[in-house]
Structure formats: C-alpha cells, structure tokens
C-alpha cells in the first residue's frame, strides 16, 4: 500500500516547488530566445540555436558539473556570496539545474509555434500603429499560446524528473534539495527501501499524468478560442 512519511511529503513538495519555479523563471527568457531565433535578423542564429539546445543533448551530469564550476567557489560563488546568495547545495541550485536542463524543451516548442505565425499578421499590426512591444504582446504572445502551454508542460515534467544535474549542483539533502527522483535513488540504495521507492514512483506517475491532463485541457481551450 501507499505509505508516505513526512520526508516523502517534503520531497514531493520540493519537487513541485522546483519544477514550478524553474518553469516560470524560464518562460520570459524562453519566449525571448524563441523570438530571437524566429523573427530577428541577428547574425549567428545557428550558433545561438546550438547554444540553446546544448543542455538537451549533453548528459545532465555534465550540465550539472559545468554549473557547479560556474557557480561554485572557483567561479561566481564568492561574487554571489557578497550578495548573500548561495547556490550550491540549496534549493536555488536545484531550480537552476532544472531550469537549464528544461530550457531547450521550452524554446523548441515556442519556436515551432512562432514559426507557424504568418509574418503578415505582424506587418498588419505595424501598419495599424502597433510598435514592437505592442505587437509582441498583442499578436505574437497570444498566437503562440498553445506552443507556450505545450512547452511549459514539457519543461515542468522534465523538471519533475531532473536527477543528474540536480544531484551535482544541489546535492541530495533530505528536506532541503531532495526531490522525488533523488529520494527514490536513496531508497533503492537502502535495504528494505523498495516499498517506499515504489510508493514514490506511483506518486511520480500520478503527478506526470496530471500535468499531461491539465496541459491537454488548456490546449483544447485555446483551440476553442481560435474557432469560436
């Protein structure tokens, strides 16, 4: 039967917190990145695209290790410390790890959505007096709504499952940075932990399924809006 102790509940809450924070933080950045890739005429777009997609193809452990070097004592760590910010082995670290690993999924989805927008809509908006920001917010954003929902879903789900980068950057500290996958990893290394591991697996499945359902419902409401 499903048995959840307080430290399991805290792992679930932490997972939700990390995934939510990572996704929400990435939305503005991801939107901007996709805009750059689709609509701007900056040189070196291919390089930019490669850079955004790198975390998708790199092993998460590598991403985590690079982040550790960047944000740790030999990197930006001392500088961040002057602002009293500590990233390594904290929840912030877990959020950053998830955000970096999930970012390409969000950008990809948004990019595909934006590529579907007929450029004439933007031209029409401009001839009607809408400037850059105005066009971005009143034409591009609503027309990429579905892609945004899809991208956020993918990224949220990916963040729920993030393991490799998180364990390196944020560690596996119960109650502080131990999310569901890290807790499951712990249980599988503990004699007699199978039942707990299975319980958390079940929770994980329910959560992921719920995310899919919510996303599907939102996509449908967008479709309806488009047709009504």
């Amino acid at each position: 039967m499903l048995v959840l102790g307080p430290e399991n509940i805290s792992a679930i809450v932490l997972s939700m917190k990390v995934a939510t924070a990572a996704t929400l933080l990435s939305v503005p950045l991801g939107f901007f990145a996709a805009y750059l890739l689709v609509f701007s005429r900056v040189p070196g777009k291919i390089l930019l695209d490669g850079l955004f997609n790198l975390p998708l193809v790199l092993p998460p452990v590598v991403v985590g290790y690079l982040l550790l070097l960047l944000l740790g004592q030999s990197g930006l760590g001392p500088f961040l410390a002057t602002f009293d910010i500590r990233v390594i082995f904290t929840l912030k670290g877990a959020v950053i790890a998830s955000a970096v690993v999930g970012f390409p999924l969000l950008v990809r989805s948004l990019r595909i959505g934006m590529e579907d927008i007929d450029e004439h809509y933007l031209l029409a908006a401009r001839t009607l007096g809408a400037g850059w920001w105005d066009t971005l917010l009143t034409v591009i954003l609503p027309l990429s709504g579905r892609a945004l929902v899809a991208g956020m879903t993918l990224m949220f789900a990916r963040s729920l499952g993030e393991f490799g980068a998180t364990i390196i950057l944020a560690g596996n500290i119960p109650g502080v940075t131990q999310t569901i996958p890290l807790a499951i990893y712990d249980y599988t290394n503990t004699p007699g932990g199978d039942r707990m591991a299975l319980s958390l697996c079940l929770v994980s499945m329910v959560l992921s399924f719920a995310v899919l359902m919510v996303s599907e419902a939102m996509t449908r409401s967008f479709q309806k809006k488009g047709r009504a």
Partner: protein
Amino acid sequence: MKLQVSVEKRFKNFFLKADFVESGNRTGIFGPSGSGKSTLVYLLAGLMKPDRGGIRLNGHTLFDAEEHLHVPTEKRRIGVVFQQAHLFPHLSVRRNLLYGFRRIPKQDRKIAPEDLINVLALDHLLDRSPNRLSGGERQRVALGRTILACPRLILMDEPLTGLDRKLKFQIIPYLRKVFDAFDIPLMFISHSIQEMRLMTDDVLAFDHGRLLNRMSSEALARQNLMTGSGGYMNLVILSDPRPHNSIYQYRWGQSSLILTEPGQPGENQFELPSREIMLFKRHPEASSARNLLDCTVTDIFPVGNRVGVELACHDQKLICQVVPESVDELGITKGETVVAGIKASAFRKLF
C-alpha cells in the same frame, strides 16, 4: 493628399525605380505581376527600406536616405490592405476592427466605428471569429480595420485578386461607398484594368520596376482595346428597370435601353463589350438587335488591327470596336452620325 516619391531599391535580380508626385485621391498602380507594384507598397508603408531617395507625404518626410531618416511603419499612418485579409485569428471581428483605432490619439479619431460598421454592413458579424467569415466578409473587415486607424493614405495591394467574380462585384460597391463617405486618399494596386476603372481616376502604369506611363484609367482601358477577355468594356450605369414584355427597359441618362437581365430599383452597373456594338450607316429597316441608337462619332483611335470608335448618344458615351475596313466602307469620320445596334443580351450586370 500630396505624395512625393523618388526611390530606388535593388534586389538580386530586380531593380525598382519610381519617381512621381501624386495628388489624386483615387490613384491606381497598374502593372503585370513582377512589375514592382508590391515592392512599392512595402516601400511606401515602411515595411522595406529604399536604397536611395526619399518619400514625402503631405509635407512630412517619411524617408530620406541622405538624412538617414526612416519613419517606422507604425508611425507613418499609412494603412495597408493586403491581398489576403490577415485578420488576427485570436481576436473577434469587433476587436480586429478596433485594433488600429485604439492605437491612435483621441483627437485623430475622425471616424466613428458605428458609422463605418454601418457602411460596411458588419453589424451581424461583430462577435464572430475571423475564421468563421467568408472571403468577402474578411476583406470587408480588413478594410474597416484599416480605415478605423484613420490613415493619411490607404494602400490596397490586389485586395480583390483572390476572390471570384461574384464576390468581387459584391465588394466593389462597399469599397466605393467607404471611400466616398470617409474621404481617405486611396492607392489601389491591381493588374486588372476593370478594377482600375471602377476604383481609380488616374493610373501609374509600372512594368519591370519602372514607371512607364501615367494616364486616366479610361485612357488605360482604351489603350488595351483588344486585350483581356472581351476587350474594352463599356461600363454603363442603368437605372430603374421596368418589365417590358419578357425583357426589361432601363433608363440610361436621357435615353433608354432594352436588356434581358433584370436589375434592382435604383442604379445598376452593367458592362457592355465594345465588340458587341454594331454600327449601321442608316437606320436598318428591321433588326434583331433590340437597341438601335442614333449616335454621333466623337473620336476614332486605332489600336493594333482594330479601331475604337467613340460614340455620343445624347448625354452618354460608348466605345465600339470595329476593324479598319468597316471604318472605310461606312465612311466613319468624326462628326458623322451612325446607328449603333446592341443586342438586349449583350449586357452583363456587375452590381
């Protein structure tokens, strides 16, 4: 309106050079596809930057290459209606219509949305999504949206090209009504001579990126006496049809014409192909043509292997197309009187 244009734009395998001053309120830009018409629209609207030259509208400089001045599209107040309506799919018809209106300062909002909605007959569509409109309705909304932005000039880039004949002639009366009612200068871009005659007074004819000629839209049509399906078309406005046996009698200025086609009370626009008019030296004793009109020849102009004959019948004018031999045999000269025979079925109703 006063539009001064002197621009050059080079592409890989195309070069546009346009140099003109235009002050008419209904101007056509005419030319085959690939003649640079659409490029000109993009340059005027600021969606593309010329390589050289300048653009001024009503004394405001919109572009000046030497001063590095390029007023962005959204500040130019030049409306564009594209070939496809491009209505925002996520907004209702109402919010599409008001998109530009809401973005101009209050003191510049010279047109009341209700008036425009009335003229374009959009009342019943306001809460619909653009996806649920017909092609003609979409184009009407696109026009309304542009007009409500109260532009200083409206560019219509082949707005009727994607529509079938029936739809086209459903929309043209709306276009004419709107431009009459709201007094906005129009530049109408098209490759159709007939659209030019119905929508514009003067025409700038482009080909291969060069301005070839400027003339009245009527002169353009006469120049193309033989081309197009049916050649030159007489556009006649006939009013108040009355049933006359099984056919109809219309008022045509001071005279009247017999037609097979029914029409609406009030004015009806018909077209009459110039080659469907037969000329007789004297009144024929009997003829199957229901209309025999006494006319005076006011002009004769040769085009290719045809001759265009301009006829005056009371207060109306007609162009008739004949071959040179007929002119010689009938002895048609300026000032001569002839009889024009027109079959009742030769007319086609446009709107």
